């Protein structure tokens, strides 16, 4: 008959309980009720400008729209770096007004007349603008909010809402609208098999 000391039993039981606890905690995070899930990890990513062709930029993007306007900081300098730290994310329902406030401004958002709720996540990041010097201790934007749509079809919904809005806001062109979407930082959820 195998005799196990009571101290060893306690250790095994503690490890077992800890394991059950951790598995339960992690299983609630990855469970999803749809075909897309957000694939983020907390931490910092550093971006570096390795190449900048000014002529190609002006001819492709725009003469009046510099890398600074798109990426912020000194994004037109080779070897300048930017970093962002993903702080947190959580499931979120955003109204059409909130989505248009994020993309444009409060004035534009107030013109929206839609009850649609965009399911998805709210992602928070700290962002350091491009710089050729050492990064400051504190971020340039301490809490950059980015909504992520659960269903990629919601991008079409945003465009439909924009089409309804366009007659009321004639200064917005379709190009402006798409550019704003890109500038704010599109994050697409990752599809996975059921």
């Amino acid at each position, binding site marked *: 008959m195998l005799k196990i000391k009571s101290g060893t039993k306690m250790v095994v039981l503690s490890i077992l309980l800890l394991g059950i606890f951790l598995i339960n905690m992690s299983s609630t995070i990855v469970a999803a009720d749809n075909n897309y899930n957000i694939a983020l990890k*907390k931490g*910092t990513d550093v971006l570096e400008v390795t190449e900048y062709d000014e002529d190609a930029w002006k001819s492709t993007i725009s003469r009046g729209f510099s890398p600074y306007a798109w990426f912020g900081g000194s994004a037109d300098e080779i070897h300048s770096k930017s970093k962002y730290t993903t702080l*947190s994310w959580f499931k979120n329902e955003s109204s059409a007004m909130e989505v248009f406030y994020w993309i444009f401004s409060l004035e534009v958002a107030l013109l929206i007349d839609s009850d649609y709720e965009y399911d998805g996540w709210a992602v928070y990041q700290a962002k350091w603008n491009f710089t050729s010097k*050492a990064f400051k201790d504190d971020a340039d934007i301490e809490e950059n909010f980015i909504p992520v749509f659960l269903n990629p079809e919601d991008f079409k919904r945003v465009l439909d809402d924009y089409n309804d809005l366009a007659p009321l806001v004639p200064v917005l062109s379709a190009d402006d609208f798409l550019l704003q979407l890109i500038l704010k930082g599109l994050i697409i959820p990752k599809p996975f098999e059921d």
Partner: protein
Amino acid sequence: MEKLNNLYIEIKPILHTYVFELKKNSKKFIIFSIITGLIGFLIGFLGFALIPEDSLSSSQGAYFQDGLGIMSLILIFGVCFFFGGIICSEFSTKSGYIVFPKINKYKLIIGKYLGNITLLIGVIAIYYFILVLLGIFFYGLPLNIRIFHSFAITILYILAVSSFVTLFSSFMKSVNMTIIATILILLIVFSLVDQIVVLSNPDFEPIYSLDFMSRLITSILETDFPATTAERYIDMEMQGFIFRIWITPTIQMGITVMLLYTIICLGLASIIFSRKQL
């Protein structure tokens, strides 16, 4: 050369006691290190890794501040357990009868003090090391250099609190009573007295308080350390009363007060110890 030889002979009992103390308390050191390491891992990693909604701090400095929030609590318990019996154990267990004839009692206490300080700094260094590793893991390099300033302040705080506990150990009769009394005073009495003093006179900064000094451990990590007195407190008005919360002492004041605590408490402890009879 002869002077050096004489110096070595004088220091030798301290060295022997120091090494003996390191070996004697090695189990305590291992247990505290494991507990401190686990706390560091839980606070600094587990929550963030498992819970997406648990937000990381916006910068490495802020992350270190959050991770070190529990430092003063860990230190109080650590100091009380390591230093609670530094003097009174020789009297309560009557081991002084054997030891004191063979070794100068001041050298014995110095050796014990230095041994325990080394072990406690080692425990805290492990906590800081884990926090630094996790800070680099989440935020990348370069490392915020202010973490080293915080570590230096923590060492000063250990010196001040350990001297305080040593003082109590010099006149109390039992190790357990010393530990309980000092934990109660450091955890509860200081903060109660602070609140009473500040309530009755909000302009009075509680620079006498070790609890207030401990805030320098985290506040030194601020990018913009409060430059003026007005920036070092927050006023809340409630029903006609002004509740002033002092956030941090100045760096110079904090260092001065902690050094004063060390000198005064150790001085008093040595006086009491010299008059104590077995």
